[in-house]
């Protein structure tokens, strides 16, 4: 299979991107400024992220769609208002996470944003669970651009006036060059920001106009350090088929109203809600400057293995190494002393609260 390119590929090259393969796509890991500068620019100004490799799945057609989707996802879709978004999961029967995703109610159905590496499988699983009864389109004629950072609203408002009135986790239709674009106020950096779904043929000029208004292209490298500082999970690292949303410390994304109802994996989740879980995702702060990466083993003070790091890096804004991982539940309390095995040495660290970097979202009416 040949490597895919997004509609912004020429622009990545023009702005000096170092390109890597990611989930079958040629994607920018960084541009000329490098990961740290790009990370800091996003936190202090605004950054543009090409996330067109992610799946945009549109579902529509039929009064029972909402009901049938609630049999798949543990979200309260009946209470979702048009243009409102929720974070949810596609799970297997064991309650393990097959993908984490954002569901938005559109005027005629739902839009689901899927992870790039999971999207084709998700599409088949969702279609099959819906018994092919509805109109479904994994739309690859659309690009997806994220604009993140404190200046995001000012920059985007100059290009698409009016979008600054959107509330966090809400979306709406706007017009760019006489074409419909769909914008949600959301993101993956711990900053205020937007995700813009736009026709492939308009993506390049749209991004150039964001750059003219003071924003900069940011690569996947900084996207990863930004999301880690924000305590957000990366599917494949921090979430997988053997990990449930409860274990992942994402209980908040399962509304109480859905716990007693049926969906894929509901029995396991109900059990975990009642009896608790053996392992739990936690934040980890090493005492020293040593960085613990994914798969680093975690020990207690008696040298017994108690867990594993799933993501770790140096946090450019917190200016310290940061990590997250799973530990035996009895070690998950904040300030518990743990040890990370890095290059044969046991490095002292503490369990800490997430996020590492405090969020700065625009609060809106987010609870239904």
């Amino acid at each position, binding site marked *: 299979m040949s490597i895919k390119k997004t509609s912004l590929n020429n622009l990545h090259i023009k702005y000096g991107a170092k390109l890597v393969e990611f989930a079958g796509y040629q994607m920018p*890991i960084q541009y000329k400024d490098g990961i740290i500068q790009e990370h800091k620019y996003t936190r202090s100004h605004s950054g543009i992220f090409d996330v067109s490799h992610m799946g945009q799945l549109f579902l529509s057609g039929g009064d029972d769609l909402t009901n049938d989707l609630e049999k798949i996802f543990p979200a309260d879709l009946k209470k979702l208002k048009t243009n409102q978004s929720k974070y949810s999961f596609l799970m297997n029967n064991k309650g393990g996470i097959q993908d984490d995703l954002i569901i938005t109610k559109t005027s005629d159905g739902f839009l689901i944003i899927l992870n790039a590496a999971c999207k084709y499988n998700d599409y088949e699983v969702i279609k099959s669970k819906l018994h092919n009864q509805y109109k479904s389109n994994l739309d690859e004629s659309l690009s997806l651009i994220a604009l993140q950072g404190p200046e995001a609203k000012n920059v985007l408002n100059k290009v698409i006036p009016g979008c600054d009135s959107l509330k966090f986790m809400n979306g709406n239709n706007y017009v760019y060059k006489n074409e419909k674009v769909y914008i949600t106020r959301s993101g993956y950096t711990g900053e205020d920001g937007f995700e813009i779904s736009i026709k492939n043929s308009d993506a390049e000029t749209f991004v150039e106009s964001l750059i003219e208004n003071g924003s900069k292209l940011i690569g996947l490298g900084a996207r990863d350090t930004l999301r880690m500082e924000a305590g957000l999970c990366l599917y494949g690292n921090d979430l997988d088929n053997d990990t449930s949303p409860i274990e992942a410390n994402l209980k908040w994304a399962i509304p109480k109203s859905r716990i007693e109802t049926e969906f894929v994996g509901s029995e396991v989740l109900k059990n975990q809600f009642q009896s608790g879980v053996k392992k739990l995702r936690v934040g980890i702060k090493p005492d020293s400057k040593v960085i613990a990466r994914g798969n680093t083993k975690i020990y207690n003070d008696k040298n017994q293995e108690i867990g594993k790091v799933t993501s770790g890096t140096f946090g450019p804004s917190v200016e310290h190494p940061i990590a997250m991982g799973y530990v035996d539940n009895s070690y998950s309390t904040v300030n518990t002393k743990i040890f990370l095995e890095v290059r044969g040495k046991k490095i002292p660290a503490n369990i800490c609260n997430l996020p590492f970097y405090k969020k700065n979202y625009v609060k809106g009416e987010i609870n239904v």
Partner: protein
Amino acid sequence: MSEVKYSKEHEWIKLDGEEATIGITKHATEMLGDIVFAELPEKGSNVDKDGTAGVVESTKAASDVYTPISGEVIDTNQMIVDDPSKINEDPEESAWFFKLKIKDKSEMDSLMSKEEYEKFAKETSA
């Protein structure tokens, strides 16, 4: 007169008599990206040619630093431990890694000259 040579692992070595200063090349720092962590060998320890003698980490990944020559570690550069970004700024001068009292000068023979290294770096990164 000091002699400067380069290894295939992208270290540079400057020899003054029996004392060698070792660091990583500018080309290496460009491949690594922003360096955020450096670990150096213990002063007084002995390191063997082509063995691990330190670690550098970027935001993305960790990489071993090898010594291109055997010897006893007589000094290490605390500046790059305190501020690893100095390695990106000035890799081939002030941001050296460690100094060795060398054992066998003939180990220098297998290393590359500046011209040879530049050619090697260009070919391997293409």
